[in-house]
C-alpha cells in the first residue's frame, strides 16, 4: 500500500488543507520507505485541488489520508481508484498507525471548493 498524506511546514503533522498543503508525505507500507515532496499546487492560481490530486496519482499512491478534500480532487481519486480516509489529527505516525489498526473511517463528504471567492 502506498499512502499519501498532506503535511504542514514541519513535515510531521497532517495539514488541514489538501489542495494547498505545502508538502505531501508518501509512505510505502511494503518497504517502509517515507518521502516528503513539495506540493507543486501549493501556490496555484486555480485548480489547486485537481493539480494536487494529480500529484498524488502520479506518485503511485492508492490511499490518501486527509482532513478534507474538495469535490474536484475527489473526482480524480474516484477515477484513479484511490481510497480516501479521514484524518483524525495529530502526527503522521499516529495516522499511519490508526490506518493500520483499521481505526480510520473513509471520507465520503467533500466540499464544493472555494473557487473564485473573494
Amino acid at each position: 500500500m502506498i499512502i499519501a498524506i498532506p503535511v504542514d511546514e514541519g513535515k510531521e503533522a497532517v495539514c488541514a488543507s489538501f489542495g494547498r498543503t505545502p508538502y505531501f508525505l508518501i509512505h510505502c507500507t511494503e518497504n517502509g520507505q517515507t518521502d516528503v515532496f513539495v506540493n507543486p499546487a501549493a501556490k496555484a492560481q486555480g485548480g489547486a485541488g485537481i493539480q494536487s490530486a494529480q500529484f498524488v496519482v502520479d506518485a503511485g499512491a492508492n490511499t490518501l489520508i486527509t482532513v478534507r478534500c474538495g469535490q474536484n480532487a475527489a473526482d480524480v481519486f474516484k477515477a484513479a481508484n484511490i481510497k480516501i480516509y479521514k484524518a483524525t489529527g495529530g502526527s503522521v505516525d499516529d495516522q499511519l498507525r490508526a490506518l493500520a489498526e483499521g481505526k480510520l473511517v473513509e471520507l465520503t463528504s467533500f466540499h464544493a471548493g472555494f473557487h473564485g471567492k473573494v
Partner: protein
Amino acid sequence: MRVAVLSGKGGTGKTFVSVCLAAVAQDAVYIDCDVEEPNGRLYWKPKIETEVPVSVLVPVFDAEKCSGCRKCVEFCRFHALAFVKDKPIVFSEVCHSCGGCMLVCPESAVVETPRPVGMVEKGTKADVRVVTGILNTGEASAVPVIKAALRAGGKADFTVIDCPPGSGCPVMESVKDADCCLLVAEPTAFGLHNFKMIHRLAALLKKPCGVVINKADAPYAPLEEYCAAQNLPILLHIPYTEQLAALGAAGKIAVDQDIELAQAFKGLLSAVKGGLLT
C-alpha cells in the same frame, strides 16, 4: 460613453444608482452585469425582445485518437485537466475555454463543444434598452455571461454598466472597457473598506472616477477624508429615507416618483458627461 457603476460591498446601491442614472439619461443602454442576481429588470420591467443563450467551449477527448502523451494536461495552466489511467479527464467548471489543449494535441484528439452557462435577455422600457446577463444557477464563472451582455449592449451614446459586487474577475471584466467609473459608497466602516478596494482597482485600470454616497444619513468623516486625500470628487449624496426604501421595495424607479431626486440625478449625469471625474 460607458459608465461602470461599482461598489465593492453588496447592497450599497449599485442597481439603484445605475437605474436612476439611465432613467434620467433617457436615450440610454442599461446593462446588468450582476449576472448572479440581475435585479435591474425588476425595476425596468422591460418588454422582452430577445433571449440568447450563452455557451462556453469545453474540450471533449476522442479516446481512440488519444495516445496518452499528456501534453494537454501539462499545458493547462488552469489545471482543468487531470490524467488518470492513461486518459485525460476534463473539469468543465475550471476550464477557461482557451482552446490550448486542442492546439497542443499532436493527435487531433480534442474537439471543442459548447456548454450552456446562461443567457442574455434584451428588452426596452421607454427610451432605455435593457440588457440583462443571467448566469445559470450553480455555475462557477460569471465572466462569459458578462462578456456576452456587454457585447449585446452594442455601441450607444450613453451606456450604464451595473457591475457585480466585489472586486474580483467579474468586476474587472465589467469595468474593463468602461470610459469611467462611478463608485457608490456606503458611509460605514465595512462600506469604506470595500470602497477603497474598488477605488484601487479602478485606479489600476486608469479609469476616471467619481463618488456617490448612498444612505447618507450623517456625514461619515473617514470616507469624506479618504475622497479628499485621493482627489476623488463626491458628486452626489443620496439621503437615507424611508420614502426611497419604500419605492425600492415596491419595484419603482425612484427618479420617476421623486422630483428632487430626479434633479439630483440630472446633476450627476451632467457631471459624468461633462468629464468631472478624476
